[in-house]
């Protein structure tokens, strides 16, 4: 699996700057109020000079107006058109401008995903734009964004129970949903070709502290290294449905909800890797369309 490529000069500088600021136990004013538009610089880091068009015909990004819990902010990306044979989204990049590592995840969508609607949870450090950038099959980029306000004074983008997350690290859960519970948002109708009636929905969850590494050990004065889920791959049989490059902005116990069109395989197979080269694998029998999670 590939590693998330976030190592351009600007990105590295930005990351080091945040480390330095954490070291003196304070954050720039911009961390709490998005004072300046840092997107142009970020955009160049992530996508270079590739043009990005308005994505409102492709996807809708749903997030709470406020990051009620800074550590767990639910993000829903709803595809507004199905994945068609000659017109589909091949990847979606989720960016949180003001976070220390702005790229939260890159979702690479397999041919059998059916619908590019995804849900996940992220940490939001400060008032920030959150962006979903979809890359179409022809390479064109399309972007939608929302502005999310920071949480109040006693919430923090830290883990709730690091001991528990570490003790049960690697435990996975797959939820399979009957289609009746699919959120109504996408305007995908029965007119879609390719057997959309078979579209299924599932959610993969893994216990992991997804440690940001931005905290200083009080005794040694060294930063505790980041330890997070770097890759999630979901297949039906051998066919990849979804491959996710993760980073520290994903919440503790990462969770991805996704769709797929069954290809006749009997099992969903999941492989998850973290930055300490731990590999967690698990398989589940695919439930019949009528049974619940």
């Amino acid at each position: 699996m590939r590693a998330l490529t976030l190592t351009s000069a600007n990105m590295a500088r930005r990351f080091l700057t945040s480390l330095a600021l954490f070291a003196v136990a304070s954050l720039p004013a911009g961390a709490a109020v998005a004072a300046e538009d840092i997107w142009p610089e970020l955009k160049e880091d992530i996508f270079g000079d590739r043009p990005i068009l308005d994505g409102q015909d492709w996807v809708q990004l749903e997030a709470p107006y406020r990051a009620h819990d800074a550590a767990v902010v639910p993000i829903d990306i709803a595809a507004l058109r199905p994945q068609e044979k000659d017109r589909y989204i091949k990847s979606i990049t989720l960016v949180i401008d003001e976070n220390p590592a702005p790229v939260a995840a890159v979702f690479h969508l397999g041919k059998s995903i059916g619908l590019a609607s995804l849900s996940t949870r992220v940490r939001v450090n400060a008032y920030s734009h959150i962006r979903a950038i979809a890359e179409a099959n022809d390479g064109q980029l399309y972007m939608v964004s929302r502005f999310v306000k920071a949480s109040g004074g006693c919430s923090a983008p830290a883990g709730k129970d690091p001991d528990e997350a570490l003790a049960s690290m690697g435990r996975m859960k797959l939820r399979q949903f009957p289609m009746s519970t699919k959120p109504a948002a996408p305007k995908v109708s029965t007119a879609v070709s390719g057997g959309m009636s078979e579209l299924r929905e599932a959610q993969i969850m893994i216990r992991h502290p997804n440690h940001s590494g931005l905290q200083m050990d009080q005794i040694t004065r060294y930063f505790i290294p980041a330890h997070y889920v770097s890759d999630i791959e979901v297949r039906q049989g051998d066919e990849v449905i979804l491959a996710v490059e993760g980073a520290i902005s994903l919440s503790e116990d990462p969770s991805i909800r996704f769709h797929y069109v069954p290809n006749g395989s009997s099992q969903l197979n999941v492989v998850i890797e973290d930055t300490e080269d731990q590999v967690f694998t698990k398989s589940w029998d695919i439930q019949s369309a009528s049974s619940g999670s």
Partner: protein
Amino acid sequence: MHLSLTSALAVFLLSLQAPVSAAEITPADVTEVAPGAFVRHGVHALIDKNNAGGIANIGFVIGSESIAVIDSGGSFLDGARLRAAIKQRSNLPIRYVINTHVHPDHIFGNAAFLQDTPIFIGHRNLPRAMQARGAHYLAANKLLMSAAAFEGTEVIPPSQTVESQSVIDLGERRLVLDAVKTAHTDADLTVLDESTGTLWTGDLLFQKHLPVVDGRLKGWLEVMDKLSALPVTRAVPGHGPVSLPWPEALEPQRAYLTKLAGDLRGLIAEGKTMRHASSIAGQSERDKWLLFEEFNTRNATAGFAELEWE
């Protein structure tokens, strides 16, 4: 610019002073809830420019030899006001500053007590929690309150931690400190003042102000069951009236957390997304609490992430 030696020295000495000089400090208004046990009532509000972070119930217990502060307040100024209230009543040394958990409204007054060189005490997980959240809390709260209130605020970690239980003696007055499992947060500490049967719960107990889940819903309900069996007369909640009868005081919070957990379990079983479920769960309890709008969605979000693993 040229500074004479004298003025340079004056600047240096000034910089050594506490940010707000003692003479300007208005002592906190405290209530004696049991003999020698005083509580400053926290306003039911978010931290803002007017309240100096004084939104939690904080206080102190006076023994025959020394004094323990139980939560220091939400800013340097909030802590300094509590300290002034202590100095009005006793000249005994302030030997302990106990932090019941990591939230800024309970720890940000610590620096106001540095001059007393107390032992700062907290749960075994408190140093880690301060490390993970301290910088974020400083940055966020600096913007919420007035500069005069925030100035001097620091994260002061505990110099002594409680593994499971510790006892401190203030002179003919024992305080029993219990480090509980993850509940309101992962670093909650209770303080039992044995001689008066007073239990300082920190934020393991809320009344009026909606409880805030920043740990584990299930763990919190279990901790409440354990606490309810304690033979105490009264509790000092982290938010709510300064003194409440025990164990009845637990009931509104138990009802809310139980309802929230029940709603969430139902929504999870229906396959609802976290975003959708967090906008619905617990809403029937809206009229029973203050700050419901500010915290219910947060609680439902945290609870969803927890209960989804059941």
